[in-house]
């Protein structure tokens, strides 16, 4: 759901950039205060992995394809929605500047959708679902699915405000496509959490593991 420059008027893109910058500054503050030095390799590897996975479009039928976005993954693994804002912002800068994947004037909107909304939806729905189900795969899958669907609906509203899509048609198509793409988001997110927790459980935020299983102090 990388919005290209042609889809949003420059002035509206500017407004999204201003909102996005507030969250980017908060994310940099998170990196400074909350991110421990041992976690630096994990943060960087996650950025590389999310970049690579984002290039891997998988068909989801209906003549459409989709890929992992990674907001839920970054937020869940690192234990903060701002981790998603931090990593997704950097990934979007590389994609937009070097590869023209997502525009420059629309980068603010893309940061808001995939980093901010994806990160917050993914993180808090995972937290809530973990309390209810105590199951990482169930919570991770649903949280990641929501973190794909809800940013897509936000994107549809932005497209309506930009005069690019009509509201109803945009919401319907974006919703249906990303409900399907969200299945990829869910599966890849759970697989990645599983993989990272099995090789380096100490790096992963303790909220991922049930208290009984994660006796090791972070």
């Amino acid at each position: 759901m990388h919005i290209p420059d042609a889809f949003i008027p420059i002035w509206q893109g500017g407004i999204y950039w201003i909102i996005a910058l507030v969250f980017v500054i908060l994310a940099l503050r998170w990196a400074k205060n909350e991110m421990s030095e041992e976690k630096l390799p994990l943060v960087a590897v996650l950025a590389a992995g999310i970049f690579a996975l984002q290039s891997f479009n998988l068909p989801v039928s209906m003549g459409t394809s989709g890929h992992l976005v990674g907001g839920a993954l970054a937020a869940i693994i690192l234990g903060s929605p701002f981790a998603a804002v931090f990593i997704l912002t950097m990934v979007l800068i590389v994609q937009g500047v070097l590869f023209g994947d997502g525009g420059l004037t629309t980068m603010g909107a893309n940061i808001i959708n995939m980093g901010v909304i994806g990160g917050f939806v993914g993180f808090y729905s995972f937290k809530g679902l973990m309390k209810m189900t105590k199951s990482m795969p169930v919570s991770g899958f649903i949280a990641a699915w929501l973190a794909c669907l809800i940013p897509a609906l936000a994107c549809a509203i932005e497209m309506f405000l930009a005069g690019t899509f009509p509201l109803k048609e945009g919401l319907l198509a974006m919703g249906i496509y990303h409900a399907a793409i969200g299945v990829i988001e869910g599966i890849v997110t759970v697989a990645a959490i599983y993989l990272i927790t099995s090789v380096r459980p100490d790096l992963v935020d303790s909220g991922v593991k049930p208290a009984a299983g994660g006796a090791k102090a972070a």
Partner: protein
Amino acid sequence: MIDNKTFLIGGIIVALLIGVVAVFLASGDPDGLESTALIVQGEKTLTGGTPEGAEIHEDLTGKFSYESPMPDYSLGEAMGSTGGIVAIVVGTLLAFGVVLGIAYAIKLAGKPVKQNQ
């Protein structure tokens, strides 16, 4: 448990492998946003396939445009999948480097203040 160095190198290798495989196997179908744009323009139905040659018409009035050095993760037709691999490898390493660099810079910038007290 594996140490930091193994995790870093292993992580980059996994990311690069995913990216390189994607060059060959990734679907060429439009993504959700592009598909929606095609529907709005009457070139595609909601659940139907995307017709070959379907193109998104862009109205550029009041919009910004920018030519990136490696559009669509490729170095142009002539370079084919080799160009695709180069683009993905550069992008993956850059995503890694930029995040590591900025994260370190932030951490280092934050330190002296605390140490001076």
